């Protein structure tokens, strides 16, 4: 039996509130000077990261018109990490701090944009009809880019390597309040743009031909959304690190929960689901596994198994 949609939404909102409360208060000793503010910062980066992951995954799935590909599978995060390693190699930690957070972010976004356009021109057009070829290409591409990143890692000095290590796994501790503020503004702008064009997104979900015949300038919106995705992925990777199969997990849970395909409901629910997963993983790491594991390992394990099950169950029917 399916829960009614309003009930689902209430349930989701309630559970996320409870999780957030547990995350902030559990074992804090109500210490408002140090523990709670620190945790609020982490909560903020979880919220922003969750929104980025969910929105980028769902919008990307609309663009490529299938429910298995996500930006991280198509190598976006791998490119971001390669770029960070290259920056460290070329400029060093000193140069990186010269470039500043904003400069680095701006250049990263530009690079991701180039990557996504290249992907669009070179692959998505050609393999539009064959999801699995794209999926295989994405997986292998991610592995190859990862290999190049490792190669660059060999060249950089140990100190810079330590800096890079901090970037290359999922963690909610690295963001500083100031960076978070900028990230929040960027995400808010991106979400506002998506919100304004929600109707277009619904039409795009029907497919390219249908969208064009309904009067949507497909190419223009494609560029817009690709740009948004590039920004969101750059944000989430810089804030919480690579999330691998998280996006696909979130998107497919939302598809299972929502009976129709209106993005007005799907996107917010996706954000809630993503934040809830991050919170749950962080709580598990802190209180159940006692830091014997990390969020990224946990998320990879659960989402990887889910993804495998999804592919095997769906067979050729995607």
């Amino acid at each position: 039996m399916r829960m009614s949609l309003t009930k689902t939404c209430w349930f989701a909102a309630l559970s996320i509130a409870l999780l957030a409360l547990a995350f902030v208060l559990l074992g804090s000793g109500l210490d408002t000077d140090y523990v709670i503010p620190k945790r609020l910062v982490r909560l903020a980066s979880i919220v922003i990261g969750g929104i980025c992951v969910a929105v980028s995954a769902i919008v990307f799935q609309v663009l490529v018109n299938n429910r298995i590909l996500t930006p991280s599978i198509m190598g976006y995060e791998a490119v971001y990490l390669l770029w960070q390693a290259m920056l460290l190699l070329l400029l060093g930690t000193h140069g990186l701090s010269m470039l500043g957070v904003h400069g680095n972010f701006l250049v990263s976004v530009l690079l991701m944009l180039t990557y996504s356009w290249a992907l669009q021109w070179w692959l998505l057009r050609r393999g539009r009809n064959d999801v699995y070829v794209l999926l295989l290409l994405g997986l292998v591409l991610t592995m190859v880019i990862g290999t190049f990143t490792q190669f660059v890692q060999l060249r950089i000095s140990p100190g810079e390597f330590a800096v890079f290590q901090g970037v290359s796994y999922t963690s909610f501790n690295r963001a500083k309040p100031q960076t978070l503020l900028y990230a929040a503004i960027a995400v808010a702008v991106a979400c506002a743009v998506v919100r304004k064009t929600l109707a277009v997104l619904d039409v795009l979900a029907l497919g390219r031909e249908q969208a064009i015949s309904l009067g949507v300038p497909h190419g223009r919106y494609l560029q817009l959304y690709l740009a948004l995705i590039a920004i969101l992925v750059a944000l989430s990777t810089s804030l919480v690190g690579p999330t691998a199969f998280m996006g696909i997990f979130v998107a497919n849970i939302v598809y299972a929960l929502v009976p129709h395909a209106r993005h007005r409901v799907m996107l917010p629910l996706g954000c809630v689901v993503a934040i809830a997963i991050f919170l749950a993983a962080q709580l598990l790491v802190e209180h159940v596994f006692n830091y014997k594991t990390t969020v990224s390992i946990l998320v990879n394990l659960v989402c990887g198994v889910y993804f495998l099950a999804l592919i095997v169950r769906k067979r050729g029917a995607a």
Partner: protein
Amino acid sequence: MRKRWLLVFAVLCVVSVLLGARQMVWSDVLSFSGDAWLTLTASRLPRLAALVLTGAGLSVCGVILQHIVRNKFVEPGTTGGLDAAKLGILVALTVMPAAGTLSRMLFALVFCLMASLLFIAVIRRIQFRNLVLVPVVGLMYGSVLTSIAEFYAYSHNILQSMQGWLLGDFSRVVQGHYEILYIIFPVVMLAYLYAHRFTVLGMGEDIATSLGLGYAATAIIGLVLVALTISATVIAVGAIPFVGLVVPQLVAMRCGENLRRTLPLVALGGASLLLACDIAGRLVMYPFEVPIGLTAGAVGGVMFLVLIVRGLR
């Protein structure tokens, strides 16, 4: 054709022996003593042997798996075999830290074999129509196995060292640390002996059975051979992805799929590819080395991408 390949292979071998941080002094070598002679016998020649054996073994593994699964995008790295072997070594290290190489290899062998059997059971039950789906499922399966291994390694505090020593690297190969690789030699010989059977196996279960081949038995022999090779290489030199996939495909594109004829070429090609990757890895940052897991991963991965994109057209 064959002669040309042999020539390339021979040149690569010679270059591999001559190349290294220490200059070869020929007078020393010819007098069978001194520093250069030691370098040659304790480091260069073992390395050459290890490279040739690993390359040949991995690409023959790829061929056998491709015929069992009947999919040209399959190799130990895309069926979870490599990741399972890593997991096995990890378990061996934590369960009995004092164990020797042989018992560690036994663990890797058992894990690799179980994982391959499970993978093939799943693949067979689903009856895919789609050529590309099998490696996708295999890669996902491998990454799940890896994350289990990471979970395990992190809670035992050996994650960092695991990432280090499971990356394919021949710089550790010196006399006394690679001999386990010689097991690949009989494996390749056996594979050659069974080449006709594997060719028939590749025609599918029905045809193979009606031609009088014990399907399950042959498939299991093949899997055991693969697991033996993989566990030996992962123990001795670490994981090297994509070699088993690219070489057999390139050979099959030129010379067809009659294994009795093409298997020697596949083995030769695998050995040559690894030799070339190793030489490149030694030259890029001379006198330091880039692990072969990276060079072979990059070269093989790019070749794999090209093969997929060619398949798209």
